[in-house]
């Protein structure tokens, strides 16, 4: 490209291309380690369900909190216009909680403040996500996927004691 000292020109190109490649690659390594070793994963395939049969299909026939073992909980939540059922849940501090959720009608969002839980509730799909709640407090749960005229009132709370 540039005439003149070919060696200097080559070094010059390396000076910016190398970090341009190396820095994003190191980000990717950090991300993969955090996801698969540290365990902050993303939602995957949780199975399908008929939204018309939610009330009679386990575990959605009994929404709420269930202790599986000391420090291990399962929370079943149904999202619909414009509320979460249940809208308030309590778990002990340090609990590892798996949320099993779906929607009865349209796509809703489900995000828990200050936690890695950020997932969509889709009619016909089961959302299965897990997080550990290491810090006590009250955390807002909100619907962040536009679901209709009262979307902005759709919220809940998780109390970590």
């Amino acid at each position, binding site marked *: 490209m540039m*005439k003149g000292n070919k060696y200097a020109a080559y070094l010059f190109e390396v000076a*910016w291309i190398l970090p341009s490649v190396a820095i994003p690659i190191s980000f990717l390594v950090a991300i993969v380690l955090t996801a698969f070793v540290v365990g902050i994963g993303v939602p995957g395939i949780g199975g399908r369900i008929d939204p018309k049969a939610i009330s009679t299909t386990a575990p959605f026939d009994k929404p709420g909190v269930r202790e599986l073992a000391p420090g291990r909980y399962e929370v079943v939540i149904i999202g619909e216009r414009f509320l979460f059922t249940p809208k308030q849940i309590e778990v002990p501090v340090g609990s590892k909680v798996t949320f099993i959720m779906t929607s009865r009608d349209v796509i809703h969002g489900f995000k828990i403040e200050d936690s890695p839980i950020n997932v969509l509730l889709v009619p016909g799909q089961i959302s299965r996500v897990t997080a550990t709640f290491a810090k006590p407090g009250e955390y807002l749960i909100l619907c962040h996927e536009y679901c209709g005229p009262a979307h902005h009132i759709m919220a809940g709370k998780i109390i970590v004691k």
Partner: protein
Amino acid sequence: MQEAHIQHSTDETDDENEEHPQPRGALVIMLSYLLLLTVLWLNVYLQMINSGGIQP
């Protein structure tokens, strides 16, 4: 078609083969940008880790 207004490479050869210094300003700006990118990225990465609920 008007040929007159398309400059042929023979006319442009002088310009294109002109010595241009390496764009050291672009290099500095690029490296500064990569630094900025790293800082912004780390900011969100650390927020993910801190709110990840990871038990020590």
